[in-house]
């Protein structure tokens, strides 16, 4: 748990608003390079690395988590040193007044979403519906200086640090999905030097928040035989619909039964979890999972995908709250699945299946 938090804290400190992942790739490679035999960056700004089995004809398992975060993109530089922005990903306006951001311009500068103070408001103003176009980001610069630093198209992300609320609860922006990357990496650490008889690829996919573009292209490149996609899922919060009580923070990682995941792999993963004593919470997702699962699943000739999620509160805010024990459960389960896949899912890794055509 400590190790996952340490990894997640390093990863959440990196930039990488969806579309601007390039900015993070150098540091990602530096941080993660040691975990793989080879690492690559793709034209869509995903990172991926592979840990090879001694058996060159072994099958390949792909682990996926997404690199990108939600944020904003500058649409205008205004008088007084303010910026107008559009959203990158879905973001609730109600949290933006006086929220702090990083502006990834010529240099990275801090910004604050302007908020009208109560002294200047008319009565009832705070109850009104807000739209992002009503907001502006204060940079503290004059317009002249600001124009040398920022232009239309500059990316903006939430500014806040990872922090523990107690022993096992942590808060940070971009735990979606950097925490899951940390859990995957932790699973690899748990394997140590063990050769599980499979090549293990990990992709840190770009542009999940923009339609899964990184995952579909990177998975195409990796061409795996099976994949474990990991993302965050909504943890139950008071006021949420009753059906969300199936995903409670602190009760284990989520395992998705969905048309966009492989039922066979999911059933197997649940059995493995039970045998290994890893807490999991099955969830049902009848439509889109809202994760990379479908993008990976439909790559090339189709990839069997298992989707694990870490329950998370306040998604797409600067304060995403998680229970690190759930991330540990996810790491433990991924490690167990990797250890057992070659043998227990042998059928998936038979290369050279004769074409029916």
């Amino acid at each position, binding site marked *: 748990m400590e190790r996952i938090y340490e990894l997640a804290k390093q990863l959440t400190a990196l930039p990488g608003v969806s579309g601007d992942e390039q900015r993070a790739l150098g540091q990602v490679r530096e941080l993660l390079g040691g975990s793989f035999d080879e690492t690559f960056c793709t034209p869509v700004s995903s990172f991926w690395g592979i840990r090879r089995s001694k058996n060159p004809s072994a099958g390949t398992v792909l682990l996926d988590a997404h690199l990108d975060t939600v944020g904003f993109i500058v649409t205008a530089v205004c008088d*007084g040193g303010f910026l107008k922005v559009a959203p990158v990903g879905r973001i609730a306006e109600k949290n933006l*007044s006086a929220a702090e951001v990083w502006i990834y311009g010529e240099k990275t500068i801090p910004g604050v979403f*302007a*908020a009208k*103070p109560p002294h200047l408001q008319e009565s009832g103003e705070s109850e009104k519906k807000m739209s992002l176009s009503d907001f*502006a980001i204060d940079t503290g610069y004059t317009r002249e200086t600001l124009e040398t630093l920022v232009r239309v198209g500059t990316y903006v992300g939430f500014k806040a640090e990872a922090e523990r609320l*107690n022993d*096992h609860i942590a808060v940070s922006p971009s735990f979606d999905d950097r925490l899951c990357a940390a859990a995957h990496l932790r699973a690899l650490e748990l394997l140590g030097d063990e050769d599980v008889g499979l090549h293990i690829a990990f992709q840190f996919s770009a542009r999940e928040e923009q339609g899964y573009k990184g995952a579909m292209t990177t998975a195409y490149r990796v061409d795996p035989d099976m994949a474990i996609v990991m993302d965050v899922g909504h943890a139950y919060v008071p006021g949420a619909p009753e059906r969300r009580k199936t995903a409670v923070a602190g009760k284990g990682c989520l395992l998705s039964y969905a048309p966009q995941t492989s039922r066979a792999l999911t059933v197997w993963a649940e059995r493995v979890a039970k045998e290994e004593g890893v807490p999991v919470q099955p969830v049902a997702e009848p439509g889109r999972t809202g994760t990379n699962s479908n993008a990976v699943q439909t790559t090339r000739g189709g990839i069997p995908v298992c989707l694990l999620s870490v329950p998370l509160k306040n998604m797409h805010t600067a*304060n995403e709250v998680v229970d690190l024990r759930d991330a540990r459960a996810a790491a433990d389960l991924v490690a167990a699945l990797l250890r057992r896949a070659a043998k227990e899912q042998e059928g998936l890794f038979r290369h050279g299946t004769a074409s029916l055509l």
Partner: protein
Amino acid sequence: MEPQAFFEKLKAYCAVPGPSGMEDAIRERILADILPSGASYEVDPLGNLLVFKRGRERRPYKLVVAAHMDEVGFLVTAVTDEGLLCFDAVGGVDRRVVSGRRVQFCKDGRTGVVASKSIHIQTPDEFGKCEPIADMRIDIGETDREGAEALVRIGDFAVFQPNYAEFGEGLVKSKAIDDRFGCAVLTDLIHSDLAYDTYFAFDTCEEIGCDGAKEVCHRLRPDVAVILESTTAGDVCDTPEGARACELRKGAVLSHMDGGTVYDKELLAFALRTAGEEKIPCQLKNIVAGGNEARAYQTSGTGARVLAISAPTRYLHSACCVAAKEDLLAVGRLTRAILERSLPLC
């Protein structure tokens, strides 16, 4: 004091939690700073810190320079079965600057997060709207009542998480600049060589109705009160010029009138004249809004003549107040220049 030292001190003051009604920590910090000056002081029953500093000369009237120690904050009102905390604001805080913020509990520094239902699980009629503070909850990472009650109880205070930093070109950003900035100017003045005997008041409970200042008036019975504060600057994007109140980088703000006070005309004219003679940038607040403990000084006992010298500050009463260093320094310089002079009082 050198500007750099002044801003180091401001940073330290802003970091101390001190919502209205719990100013003890910030008062201790301020006291530690003024003890070496040799000025005499007392702490009154409401927690106000009163200081007297001998000057080179006596004044024929009693003058107090005041700033308030308290900041806006939050008070825990209930603990839920799910281990979340109900709370209310202490002072005037817009619900929208509370949603999604981190807070710090005063008694142990614990962090809490103002929970915010993710946009994905909001219903369409919730989009873009902010619930009232009464419906918000603070998450401290506990999942049941017992766990939460072991750590936090009804009546516990919290404030916005400290976040002082340099900002943009010559600005600073922090919670509680209102009015730790005024406190920092006062402690500087207490250490300086003063022309005249001067009283200083570090007031409590300004944000909830200036209750501290009322007691200060009662004890000191000042003839003149000069209030140093942060005042709201509306010079933000899309705000018409006439509705901005005041603007950053245009100097100290002097007010004719605000939501609670009509300021003394002679003192105001004197302050404007002094600023002009000393070439200290200053501006007039151009809307009638806001207010400060001048209202208490003006109306307590037989009343006092009041003057407010303010620093224009954006996003007052939020986690990120933004002010210009040059304006903060201008307020200090103007106050010092005024204290050097004999006031034109009849």
